[in-house]
């Protein structure tokens, strides 16, 4: 029970706790069921399932049709251009995290990519750095920084619109948003409109990237909530493991 109440306090910190939303763990005699409960790392499952159900309804009504429309209106080479542009605009955040992680080579690559793609790549639309200089985009964020600093992810969270998360990565997401100087640049309604457009495009781009996977889950899973939880937790953990391994093998 202690584990559960600690997890719940974390949830409270994330500002998400509704009273009575915690799952009851299996009795301690049932060791295997208890192990499974711990592996799922989802003490707030009832709340998470409710949020997932709301999100799924919104998805069917609006978000999926919007993503499909985006794909139809904007053909593939242009969508890649949008993706490149968004990645280029995110450079300050990526660079900040490269440095916070003590990765000067990564930071150098990020900065070099920005300079090349902003000039030769027409403001970032074309990823010249990857195509001609062999320096591919490498995503980085404050959630990863925290992970490399040794912060545990905490319990599973399903956030409407944002999808599968955990308190560490949710905090990281918030820090990344606030840390982006472009979000603070200028004022007035035009700038605000641009910021909203930017956020909207970022959202559409990320949805576009995972839409096929989501459709696959909807088509094949007997319990999409459990499937998305398992896949997202494993993939995120593997990503962190890969980063840790890279750091160990780095000179």
């Amino acid at each position: 029970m202690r584990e559960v109440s600690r997890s719940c306090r974390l949830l409270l910190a994330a500002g998400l706790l509704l009273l009575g939303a915690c799952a009851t763990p299996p009795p301690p005699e049932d060791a295997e069921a208890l192990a499974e409960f711990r592996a799922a790392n989802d003490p707030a499952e009832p709340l998470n399932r409710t949020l997932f159900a709301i999100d799924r309804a919104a998805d069917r009504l609006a978000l999926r049709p919007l993503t499909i429309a985006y794909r139809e209106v904007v053909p593939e080479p242009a969508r890649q251009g949008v993706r490149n542009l968004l990645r280029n605009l995110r450079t300050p955040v990526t660079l900040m995290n490269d440095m916070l992680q003590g990765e000067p080579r990564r930071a150098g690559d990020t900065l070099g990519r920005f300079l090349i793609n902003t000039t030769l790549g027409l403001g970032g639309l074309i990823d010249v750095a990857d195509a001609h200089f062999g320096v591919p985009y490498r995503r980085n964020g404050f959630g990863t920084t925290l992970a490399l600093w040794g912060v545990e992810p905490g319990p599973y969270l399903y956030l409407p619109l944002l999808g599968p998360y955990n308190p560490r990565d949710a905090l990281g997401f918030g820090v990344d948003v606030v840390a982006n100087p472009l979000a603070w640049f200028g004022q007035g309604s035009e700038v605000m409109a641009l910021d909203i457009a930017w956020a909207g495009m970022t959202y559409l781009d990320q949805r576009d990237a995972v839409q096929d996977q989501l459709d696959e889950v909807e088509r094949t899973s007997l319990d999409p909530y459990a499937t998305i939880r398992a896949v997202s937790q494993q993939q995120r953990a593997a990503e962190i493991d890969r980063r840790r391994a890279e750091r160990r093998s780095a000179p």
Partner: protein
Amino acid sequence: MRRRDLYGLLLLAWLCPIAPARAALTPARATAFIQAAGEELVAVINDRGLSTEERRQRVAAILRRSVDIEGVGRFVLGRFWRQASPAEQAEYLRLFEESLIRNLAGRFGELQGVAFTVERNPRLIEEDVVVATIVTRPGQPPVTLEWRVAEVGGQPRIVDLIAEGASLRLTQRSEYAAVITRGGNQVSALNAALRRQLGQ
């Protein structure tokens, strides 16, 4: 013993010089197995002469030969396997096989223009070998798919597929455990859900 047989035996001894007790699965053998199964799959997937249905059937046939379906099925059911009655176990395995083949054949069957390369130096986990492949499709970023290969009845067989760090059998185990737990801890609830999904 004729001389040719003796040479054959000597050649065999030379080919497998280490520990006959654990002769089992060498990384090289697992890699060759995945290379062969992958080439076979890709040839079928990219064969434009086949209808969608034919393609799915051939993909299914390759999967039935290369995947340890029963072993994966038991793994996925996990702690509930012992809890199930023999009749429930049998029905579950039948439904699991059909569902797995249908889902994978559907998924692979749609990958027109797919190509793959097998990475050298596979990882070892316990007794198994994990072979990584890089899968590319026109207009899509390359994807890393890892195949966990185990020796089953003397033959290499696929026991798991790991996509970008997510293991298919672990994911399915969580999925099925959720269905069973929410269905009053009954394996029959899972069988019913599988039957519904398969339209039976």
